[in-house]
C-alpha cells in the first residue's frame, strides 16, 4: 500500500497500574490505518481492544497508563505526524484532535448522551467548539446531519431530549455527532453490540453510507466476525493484548494463519450447519486473567498446534506473508486451508 497511513500504532503498550506494580494489558500493538479504509479490531471481551481505542484519544482512566510506544497521527498526510502518546491527556492539542480529527462512537447509545440537554445542543456544541460557526449555522448543520443519518423529522428532533429517542435513534445521533466535524478517523467501539439485530443492520448501513460519503477511515472494534466481513477492508485479531494476526479481510477470512484466528472462524455458526448436523467448535479453555499471562505465546495453553519448549517459552516474532498479511506464530501452515468465509 503506497498511501501513508493516517494513524500508525508503533509497539503501543498499555499497563494497569496497581500501586507501584504494572500489569500488561496490551503489548507491542502495531497497527496501520489508511485513509478511507475500515480496519476491524477483533477479539474476545477483555483482550484489550477497547483499551487500545481509548488510548488513541488518551481517554484511558488514570489507572491505565501508556508505558511504551507511539501513536502517530497524520490527518493531512503531511508526512510529519503527531505522536498522540506524547501529548498531555488534558492539554489543548489532544482536545483539538478529539471530536475534530478523530471522533469516537461508543457501545452504549443509551448513556452516551446527557439526559439533561437536547440532542441538538450536544451535537452543536462539538461543531461550535471546533469550527468557528455561529449558533444558527451550527443548528442547520445539525439538522442536515440528523437527516443524513436517517432520523425522521430532523427539524423537530434537534430539540428533543435523549430519553425520547430509542436506542437505534440515539446511536444514529451519536454517529451524527461523531461526523459533525468531518473527522479523518472514526473510532467505533462496538457500536452495535447493545442494539438488537435489526437495528444493528440499520446502524451498520448508516455507517457504511457515511463512510463512503465522507471517506472517513474507521477503526471498527467488534467481536462479531459477521460484522467484520460486512464492514471491514482490513482486519487485526487481538488476543490477550497482542495483535496475533492482521491482514486484508480476504486474507484473514480465506487464509487465516494463526490457530486462534482459525479457531475463531470455526466458532462462527453458518447457514447449512444445522442440516449438516455439524456442531460448532468452541475454542478449548478460556482466556486467562491478566494476572496469569502464560509465558511465551499467550494462546499456547489453548492451542492445538502448540509446540512444547517453543511456544510456551518465547513470544513468536511477526512473520510477513504478503504485503499486508502478518502473523505472529511459530506454526507454519503452508497448505491452503478451507474456505472460512461465512
Amino acid at each position, binding site marked *: 500500500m503506497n498511501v501513508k497511513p493516517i494513524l500508525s500504532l508503533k509497539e503501543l503498550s498499555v499497563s494497569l497500574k496497581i500501586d507501584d506494580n504494572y500489569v500488561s494489558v496490551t503489548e507491542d500493538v502495531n497497527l496501520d490505518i489508511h485513509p478511507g479504509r475500515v480496519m476491524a479490531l477483533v477479539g474476545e471481551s477483555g483482550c484489550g481492544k477497547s483499551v487500545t481505542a481509548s488510548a488513541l484519544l488518551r481517554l484511558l482512566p488514570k489507572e491505565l497508563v501508556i508505558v511504551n510506544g507511539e501513536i502517530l497521527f497524520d490527518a493531512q498526510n503531511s508526512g510529519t505526524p503527531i505522536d498522540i502518546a506524547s501529548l498531555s491527556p488534558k492539554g489543548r492539542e489532544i482536545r483539538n484532535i*478529539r*471530536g475534530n480529527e478523530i471522533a469516537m462512537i461508543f457501545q452504549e447509545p443509551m448513556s*452516551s*448522551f*446527557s439526559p*439533561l440537554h437536547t440532542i441538538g445542543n450536544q451535537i452543536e456544541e*462539538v461543531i461550535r*467548539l471546533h469550527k468557528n460557526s455561529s449558533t444558527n449555522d451550527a443548528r442547520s448543520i445539525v439538522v442536515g446531519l440528523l437527516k443524513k443519518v436517517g432520523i425522521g423529522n430532523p427539524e423537530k428532533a434537534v430539540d428533543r*431530549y435523549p430519553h425520547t429517542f430509542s436506542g437505534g435513534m440515539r446511536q444514529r445521533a451519536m454517529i451524527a455527532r461523531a461526523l459533525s466535524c468531518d473527522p479523518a478517523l472514526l473510532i467505533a467501539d462496538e457500536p452495535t453490540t447493545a442494539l438488537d439485530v435489526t437495528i444493528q443492520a440499520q446502524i451498520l448501513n448508516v455507517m457504511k453510507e457515511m463512510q463512503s460519503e465522507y471517506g472517513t477511515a474507521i477503526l471498527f472494534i467488534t467481536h462479531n466476525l459477521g460484522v467484520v466481513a460486512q464492514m471491514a477492508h482490513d482486519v487485526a485479531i487481538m488476543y490477550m493484548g497482542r495483535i496475533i494476526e492482521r491482514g486484508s479481510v480476504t486474507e484473514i477470512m480465506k487464509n487465516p494463519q494463526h490457530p486462534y484466528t482459525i479457531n475463531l472462524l470455526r466458532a462462527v455458526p453458518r447457514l447449512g450447519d444445522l442440516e449438516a448436523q455439524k456442531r460448532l467448535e468452541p475454542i478449548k479453555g478460556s482466556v486467562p486473567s491478566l494476572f496469569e499471562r502464560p509465558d511465551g505465546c499467550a494462546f499456547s495453553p489453548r492451542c492445538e498446534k502448540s509446540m512444547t519448549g517453543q511456544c510456551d517459552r518465547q513470544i513468536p516474532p511477526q512473520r510477513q506473508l504478503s504485503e499486508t498479511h502478518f502473523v505472529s506464530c511459530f506454526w507454519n501452515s503452508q497448505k491452503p486451508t478451507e474456505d472460512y468465509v461465512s
Partner: protein
Amino acid sequence: MLHLLLRRIAASIVTLTLISVVAFFLIELPPGDFVDSYVSKKTQGGDIITQEEISEMRSRLGLDRPVYVRYFKWVGNLVRGDFGFSWEYRRPVSDVLAERLPLTFILAFTTLIFTYMIAVPMGIFSAVRQYSLGDHAITILGYVGLALPQFVFALILMYLGHLWFGASVGGLFSPEFEDAPWSVAKGLDMLAHIWIPVIVLGTAGTAFQLRTMRAVLLDELNKMYVIAARASGLSEFRLLMKYPVRMALNPIIATLGWELSHIISGAPIVGLVLSLPDTGPLFINSLLNQDMYLAGTMILIYCALVVIGTFLSDILLMIMDPRIRIGGVS
C-alpha cells in the same frame, strides 16, 4: 407540565390540611390545658383561685367544648386569616408573630443559601480531587459538623466570637439597634451577628449535602456521556460543569424541602441558646405554657415552610430535568 404543577399544588393543600389536624391534636396531647398551667403559676405566686373562677375562665376561652368543635372553629378562623388569640401575651397571634417571623424567615433562608453555597463547590472539589489532602480535610470537617450537637456548637461559637471579636454575641442585633426601626445600619449590624446562628444551623446540613454531592458526582464522573463529551474535545472544566455537575445537582435540589425542615427544627433550640429575637424561643415558651393558638399557628407555619420548600424543589426539578418535565418516551 401544567398538569403536574396543578397536581403538586393540590397535594400541597391536602398535606397542609392534614398537618393542621396533626398540629392541633399534638398541642392537645399533653395533660392539662392553658388554664391548668395558668392556675398552677398563679397559686405558686400565692394567689388563691376558686373552682368557679377556673371553670368560668375555661368557658370564656372555649376550652370546655369538645375537641373537634374547637378544631373546626380554629381552622375556620385560619382560613379567614385569623390566627386566634395568644392567652399568654394577651394579644392576637398575628401581632405576636409579626415582629419575629420575618427574622425566622431571614435566618432560615440565609442558612439555606449558606448551606448550598458551601456544600456544592466543596462537594465538587471533593469528588474531582478524590482522596486528595483537600478531600480528606473536607471529609473530616464534614463529619465533625454532622456529629457536633447544635447547642454545643452554638456555645462554642459564642465563646469564640466573644474572644476574637469582642462582639456582643447572642441575639441578632447590638443593644443599640435592638428596638431601632429598620435601616441600612441595622441591616449591617444584623449581618455581623447572623453568621453565628447561620453556621450553627447550617453546618450539619452543609456536611450532609456535601457528602451527597460528592457521592453522586463520583458516580456521574465515570458515566458514558462524560467520556463521550470528553471524546468530542471539551475542556475538563466546561465538561464538568455542563454535564456531571448538572446531573449531581438533582438530588441536592430534591432535598431542598427536607433541608429546610432540618434548619427549622433546629432553629428553636439554637434560638434559645443564642437568645435570638426570632420565633424559636417564642415557640418553646408557647408549648410550655400550653398557649395553644400560638403554638398551633407556629407548628402550622413551620410545616407550611417545609411544604413550600418541597413544592419549590419540585418546580426546580421540573425546570432542571427534562425527564421529569416531559415524561417518558413519546
